Structure formats: C-alpha cells, structure tokens
C-alpha cells in the first residue's frame, strides 16, 4: 500500500485553462487606451466636474464662491439670456442651411465633375485654414464695411430693401447686423460642411448613377432617389460639424455684430472674463451644451441615418 501512497496524487480532472494562453496580452488594449483616457480625464472630465460645481456656487468675487447647490442659477440664467439662446440657434441654423446650400453643389462638383481640377479645388477649400480664424473674420469687416463695394452693390440691386424689411440689416449698413454675423458664420464653417459631404459623395459608385439612368430615372430623379440618400451620412456629419461650433461661436458676433446680435457665446464670454460671474457663465455653458445635445439627438433620430453613419 505504501507504494500507492508514494505515488503522485491522482491528477484531479484538470479543467481546461479558461484563460487564453497569452495572458500578458490581456491588458494590452487597456494600456493602449491609457493615454487617451488620461487626456479625456484631465481635459474633459475634470473641467466638466469643476464647471458643474461652479454652476451651483453662490457668492461674490470679493468673498469667494461656495457650493450651495444653488440650482436656481440655471433658471435665472435662462430667463435672463433666453433671447441670446434663441439668436444662437437661429444664426447657427441659418448659417448651417446656407453652408449646405453652398457646399453641396461644390462638393458634388469636386466629387463627380472636377476631373483633374479636383485636387486644386480641394486645396482652395482648405486654403483659408492657413490664415487665423480671427484675421479671416476681421477681413469680413473690411468686405462688409459701410460704403464698401459689397454694400454699394447690394444697395444698387435693392437687396438691402428686402433684408431691411426682413430685419436682417438696418438702413444702409450690413456690418453690425444679423446678416453680417450669419455671413461670417457661413464663411468660417463652410469647409466643415464641404469636406464630409465630399467624402460621402466621392464614395458613391458612379455605376449607380448609370444604373438609375438605365432604369428610367431622369438626372434630377437620380439625384433625389440615389445620390442624395447615399450622401446622407455626409449631410448629417456636415451639418453637425457646422451647427455645433457655430451655435457656441462668439467671435463672429463680436467682430461683425452689434449689441443686438449677441449670441449665447458672447454672454458666456462676458460673464467669465468681464463680469466675473462664474456661476452664471458655467450654468449658461451647461444649458447650451444640453440644448445642443438634445437637438443633435432629435436630428439624428429624424434623419434616420443610424445605419448609415
């Protein structure tokens, strides 16, 4: 019997190792994610938390601010500055629609008709980025200056009569009117519309156009039934890339507008940097963010492009 006891203990039915053999590799994806996660924590999560706490503080600059869970700051901010919110959505929305109307034909041209000019036109679309955003916006100040050629031409063509009637311009001026702000926004964000549009149009197989034509679709029907639906991912991302930054922009309203064209971005900027009312500024920022998120979610739902994007 002793021999039996000396024998190595019978092997317990060994369960197959559930772990994959290369155990060390298990953490690799997380290590690779680490720099990005750190970046997000330091530059997104922490500031958000900080800002959230700021928004519910009360106090004054002299006495210091304390967290008092003063949620009424949100209501106060909204009731005081709702016109600027409405204006932001209106201006950004108009600029986005104008960008789409201007950008779509251009993106279409580059994708399907430009031939060997394609790269040159693409460079021209991106070229403004080589100059600072501020300088480009300041240039519009000169372009739209009182008594300048643009205003003169609009006057001669009686366009200003129409825009005056619509309330977009005032008298003989374009500068310091809503029209000027919308022009600036449209100009500054146009490339963000064109690039995604071009990308999605360029991916469309040209034979689909031929197939549609072969199946009795006139060119316009082909566009409506084939080209446009297939370019929806580009339309959605283009409008988002235009609308979101435009809604929060304050440079255009600041340089090209007047006190009557202030957008919510201007209010936030003033509250933070001039009035130094941090809670109100933080609350406004959160309201703007929530409003944009809500609108974007509704928009993506409506456009039904979940499976395309």
């Amino acid at each position, binding site marked *: 019997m002793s021999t039996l006891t000396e024998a190595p203990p019978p092997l317990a039915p060994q369960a197959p190792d559930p772990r994959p053999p290369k155990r060390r590799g298990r953490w690799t994806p997380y290590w690779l994610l680490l720099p990005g996660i750190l970046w997000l924590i330091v530059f997104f999560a922490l500031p958000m938390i900080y800002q959230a706490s700021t928004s519910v503080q009360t106090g004054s600059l002299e006495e210091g601010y304390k967290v008092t869970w003063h949620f009424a700051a949100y209501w106060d901010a909204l009731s005081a500055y709702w016109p600027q919110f409405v204006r932001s959505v209106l201006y950004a929305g108009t600029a986005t629609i104008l960008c789409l109307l201007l950008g779509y034909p251009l993106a279409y041209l580059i994708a399907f008709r430009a031939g060997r000019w394609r790269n040159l036109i693409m460079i021209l679309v991106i070229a403004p980025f080589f100059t600072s955003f501020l300088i480009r916006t300041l240039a519009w100040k000169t372009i739209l200056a009182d008594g300048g050629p643009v205003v003169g031409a609009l006057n001669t063509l009686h366009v200003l009569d129409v825009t005056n009637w619509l309330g977009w311009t005032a008298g003989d001026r374009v500068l310091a009117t809503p029209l000027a702000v919308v022009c600036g926004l449209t100009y500054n964000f146009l490339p963000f519309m064109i690039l995604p549009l071009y990308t999605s149009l360029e991916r469309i197989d040209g034979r689909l156009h031929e197939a549609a034509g*072969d199946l009795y679709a006139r060119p316009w029907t082909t566009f409506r039934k084939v080209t446009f639906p297939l370019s929806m991912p580009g339309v959605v991302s283009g409008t988002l890339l235009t609308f979101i930054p435009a809604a929060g922009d304050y440079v255009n309203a600041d340089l090209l507008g007047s006190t009557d064209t202030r957008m919510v971005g201007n209010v936030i900027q003033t509250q933070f940097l001039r009035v130094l009312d941090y809670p109100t500024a933080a609350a406004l920022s959160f309201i703007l963010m929530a409003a944009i998120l809500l609108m974007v979610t509704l928009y993506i739902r409506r456009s039904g492009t979940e499976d395309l994007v």
Partner: protein
Amino acid sequence: MTNKTDPTGDVRLTGIAKTYGDFTAVHPLDLTVPQGSFFALLGASGCGKTTTLRMIAGLEEPSAGTVHLGDQDVTALPPYKRPVNTVFQSYALFPHLDIFENVAFGLRRRGLKSVRKQVEEMLDLVQLGEQARKKPHQLSGGQQQRVAVARALINHPKVLLLDEPLGALDLKLRRQMQLELKRIQTEVGITFIHVTHDQEEAMTMADTVAVMNAGRVEQLGSPTDLYENPGTTFVANFLGTSNFIEAEVDSKSGDDIVLKAGGGKLVLPEARCSAPASTGGKVLVGVRPEKISLTHADDAGEIPEGRNRITGRIADSSFIGVSTQYVVDSPVCPGFEVYAQNIDRDPRLVPGAEVVLHWNPAHTFGLDAAQSVFDGTEGSAGVEEAA
C-alpha cells in the same frame, strides 16, 4: 409569346463607332440582332464589346453611326428614354434600398403606383421571394446577380443588355447561372445581348455569337458555325484550340482543293476555305484537335483511304480522364495538338512513338495564309496582357 419574325424589335447598329482621342475603341460596325435572340459579344477585354453594349444602352455616345431599336432611331436618346435595360458587371444594386425597392425602381420611375404584384412575381421568377426585405449587401453574389436581372427584366425592355454578368461568380455558380439565364430568356422571350470574354459561356448560352477583336467583329454566326468553320486564325484560336499547317495549293478536284504540305497531300473542301485558293498560292490549313485520330506508325496500313494524314512523333501526352491530350511534333507543324477519347487506348502511344495523324477532310478548314497563326491565343489577344 413574342413573334420572333417581327422585325420591329430588332436591334440595328449602323456604322457605329467610338473613338477616345487617338484610340479607336470600336471601328465602324454594322450589326443586326434579331428580336428574341440570345446574342453574345465575345472577345478579350479591351476589344470594344463593352463599349458597343454601352452605346446600345445610351451610356456611351457613339462617335459615328446610329442605333435603331426596331424602327426607332434611339442614337440621340438618353438612357432613361430607351426601352433597354442593363445588368451591370458588378450589379450596381442600390445599397440604400431593399431588394423589393431595387426591383421596383424602374416601375416607380415610370409612374406606376401599384407595383407589389409585379415585383413579387418577378422575385419568384428569380427565386428570391423570401429575400424581398433584405438589403443587397445581405445577399450572396449569386443572389445579387439574380436581383440585378430581375430589376432589369421587370421593365419588359425590348432588349436586355448583360455586361459580363457572371464575371464575379465562382465557376460552379457560373454554370448554374448560365442555365438559369438561358431558362429566363426562353421564358420571357426578350432579346438578350450578352457581353463576355468566356468563350464557353458564349457558346453554351447564345444563339448567335459575334467574336470581336481590336474594335472589329471578326466573325458572326452560331456557336457551331464559328467553331467548325472559323474565318480567321483569331476565331479559330479564341474559340477552342486549332492546329495550323501552311500548305500550297496544288490542284482542284471537284469540290475539293488539293494542297501540298511537306511531302504529303491534304484535301480541303472548297466550301470550307475562306481564302482565295489559286494554284501555287498559300493557304493555312486548320483542324481541331478532337477531330484527329492517332495511329501508331506500324499500323499505318489500316488507316482507311481518303483521309488526310500527316506523320509525326509524340512529344508529350497528358491524361485528363475523359481524354488524353497529345502534343505531336510533325515536320509540317511543330506542336500539333490531338485530343483522343479514352475508349481503346493503344499502349504504344507514348512520348517518342512514331505516329500517323489522320482525319476526315470534311473537318479541315482553310484560312488566309497572310495572318499570324497565333492571333487569339493567350497573350496575343490585343491589349489584355499589355499591362
């Protein structure tokens, strides 16, 4: 179904040509495709067959000439006004529409309101009734191909154009779809014009085949006619394999031409000679490998009289199941190919054996000796291998 003798449905191409700058894709071409026929345009890539098809569809504007569908001159009509539909090479199904809407596309464009019944019938015809609500990318290649056919056929076009429709399928599926397409064509009776580079595909499916080479139609005829009686070395080589012997016209006897080749005589029926045969002139004598019998030189006496015969030595033989393929070196033609059915195999027929090749003169064809015997063999079929 349709009256096949009614000339109002013929496709008539008159002097149609296409040039791109200096390059001529299609030389002026006259072609009539009778209504209800299954017509194949066969050729290597770059021979102009697809360009010809696209000119019929209206996707390409001819540089010269006219396209008639029946009595109607459609040359100037845009594609959406032509009673013609195309099955594209990679199907070009609309990725954002489901199968039902893909098939219904043409009907809806023509303003039909209730399309359900027609679409369902058409999907049943191509056996895809169950897949109606799927998106094209959810289907296999063979199913997508059938959707493309259904999408075109549902419009009852005067002509259905097929641009290498089976090119993307694997071999087995291809054979299956060939039969399927042939069945559909017989069922609906619409004229099919089929572009392909696969000679077997053209021969199994089409009633009439036009062999194209470098922008020209080399020869037009039924598959049997083209195979048995090729008019040029290109056709002889592109459809199957041919052996060529350069021979000199010796004399004429009755309906036959007697030719001298090497030391021997060959007989060629005059009707099967497409070249001018004047005494002393050169003619290329062709014969298909499967028409030839091989007899060992020792048994040469047993060969019946009246057969064309040449002598040679077996250089190589390969057994491929149903047949054995021999390469025979002969003084009149190096690398003569012979396919022998494996019925009674003579064990003496091994490489190195002296043999006599003989065949019925009726299987001989004569071609103009002024052309290369290599036209249409692989690697010489125009632009294809140029890259």
